[in-house]
């Protein structure tokens, strides 16, 4: 049976602090991630999409306790790993971290500029599998060729590589310890278009071969459609729609999802004019609208949307949406 990662009721608040002469006063809280739940299984990819500030990166970081969540559970094969990741038992924490790896958005910032690529790649091996140090260099070479780099380039430094090559190193480093889950935070956003396709192909091929599960975070819906089996759409810290990727893209039920999809200019001239234009901007998370947070921008808003917060409910067999008046 393949591994299962279940996130349920994940919450993260940031206190807004007002500094006064001698004291700090917490005036209110921003709900960056608010009751987020989803499940990812081996071999699957959940695409997490939304505009900047919707909480997608905070969600991924909270899973690995890189930011400390305020509530909720992260269950790996049924066991809640949040206390383990936050706990004092280093061996247990590392055992969980080995199974869930992270690839960062910016390959320029996530590699130590003073380490050669081989040194950077030996680090996860050193941390997670003590013992067979003699085999590490061979393993590094094998990993580099797996991600399409020349193993002889292991002695080079990050600045000698292009952005795409550096992202390959980031991916090689993540798969070095044979994780079951990889959290990919905008892994192709900083890359050129022609290089983006190469990295997306690499990620798809590695998944087909190694059976890992991905949480793929992106604001680029086209790449999400390509790489994902499932997709969750976030708005102001909450998931507003979730389901099988083709179902959500072909038949979005939440009005925000529909607007988000139709906002993407399609690479076909004259394809434009069936779009649902969104008015206004994403409200500040500081004053989240009452009821459905999307109602001030929603063309189909009803009186109930202003007062009652909708919950995620099944919309047919393949998707869930939180909307009082679904499409």
């Amino acid at each position: 049976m393949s591994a299962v990662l279940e996130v349920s009721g994940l919450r993260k608040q940031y206190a807004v602090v007002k500094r006064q002469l001698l004291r700090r006063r917490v005036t209110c809280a921003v709900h960056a991630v608010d009751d987020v739940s989803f499940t990812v299984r081996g071999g699957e990819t959940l695409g997490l999409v939304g505009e900047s500030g919707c909480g997608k990166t905070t969600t991924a970081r909270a899973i690995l306790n890189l930011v400390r969540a305020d509530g909720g559970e992260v269950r790996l094969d049924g066991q809640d790993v949040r206390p383990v990741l936050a706990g004092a038992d280093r061996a247990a924490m590392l055992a969980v971290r080995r199974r869930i790896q992270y690839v960062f958005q910016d390959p320029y910032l996530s590699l130590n500029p003073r380490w050669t690529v081989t040194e950077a790649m030996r680090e996860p091996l050193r941390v997670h599998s003590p013992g067979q140090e003699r085999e590490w260099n061979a393993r590094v070479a094998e990993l580099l060729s797996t991600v399409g780099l020349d193993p002889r380039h292991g002695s080079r430094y990050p600045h000698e590589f292009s952005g795409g090559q550096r992202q390959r190193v980031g991916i090689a480093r993540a798969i070095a310890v044979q994780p079951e889950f990889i959290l990919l935070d905008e892994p192709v956003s900083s890359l050129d278009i022609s290089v983006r396709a190469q990295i997306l192909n690499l990620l798809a091929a590695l998944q087909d071969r190694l059976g890992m599960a991905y949480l793929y975070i992106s604001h680029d819906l086209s790449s999400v459609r390509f790489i994902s089996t499932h997709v969750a759409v976030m708005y102001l810290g909450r998931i507003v729609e979730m389901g099988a990727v083709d179902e959500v893209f072909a038949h979005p039920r939440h009005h925000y999802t529909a607007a988000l999809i139709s906002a993407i200019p399609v690479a076909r001239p004259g394809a434009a004019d069936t779009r649902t234009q969104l008015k206004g901007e994403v409200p500040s998370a500081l004053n989240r609208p009452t009821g459905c947070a999307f109602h001030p921008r929603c063309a189909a808003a009803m009186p109930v949307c202003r007062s009652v917060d909708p919950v995620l409910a099944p919309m047919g067999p393949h998707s869930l949406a939180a909307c009082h008046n679904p499409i």
Partner: protein
Amino acid sequence: MLSIPVSAQDKPLLAVEGLRVQFPTRDGVVRAVDGVDFHVGAGETLGIVGESGSGKTVTSLSLLRLAPPPARITAGRVVFEGEDLVSTTPARLVAIRGRRMAMIFQNPATSLNPVLSIGRQLSEILRWHTGIGRKPALDRAAELLRLVGIGDPAARLKQYPHELSGGMKQRVGIARALLCEPALLLADEPTTALDVTIQAQILDLLAELRTRLSMSMILVTHDMGVVARMADRITVMYAGRVCETAAASTIFDAPLHPYTRALLESVPRIDHSYSGARRVLPSIAGRPPDLLHPPAGCRFHARCPEAVPDCARIMPREISVGPGHTVSCIRRGSPAETELAA
């Protein structure tokens, strides 16, 4: 979408001929723009598409001689409204910048002056160019803010850039560019820094304004979706040279240059299902060349699926393959470039 006005091709508003821009560096000369030709007709929108390092931004900055030092325009002409901007006097340039040809920059956060109020930075431009008084300049600025969809312009004029959201700042950037009703608007990645729903709003706004003010526009972007939506004609650049220029529909439906084809295919499509089949995007192997040591011959030959031995030797020159459709590829019949870069 506008069709190509035939008359505009006879006497274009802007004609760029053989433009070369070089950056002398310690390691050698970087040929960022290496012999680029295109033109923009009245009322027309030209999309310039390319990856980073293709020279699209340096090209657009060089039109107004704004490319940052050590950039040098070493050859070519930029004929705008009958005047060559490469050889004209600095005084003439100052009179043209912002008045006849204006720019919208990629990052609205850094292109506005943080210590001046919105009203101050908008009215200053008007007063500089037209010499009108403070009060009428502020009134005109408020009118422009309303035109770009900013509510309560009187209050906004008193605000500073940090008080505005990214989308709002870009609207101010557009208002600033339109103050003097320029004949040509240069928009360099105007929506790249914005979220997609805000991007859609800004693109709609630009489309409406160019019709209402009958402006020409050059839209520089790496996003094929954005040019498909906005451009009448498209110029595709690679490594400092133009690969192909054609009407937007031709570029998307019948592209001829191998790079244009590869570029279009390598972008995942939002309206296409990838489940079921093996997930493989047609990708371009390798990466764009280092312009310090550009490859001989066609700049794209090392990555080109159709390359023949001659491609590594002969630099192709633009050839016309149909009405308004030019391509630089010896596999499509391009002759060799005669005057090779010195």
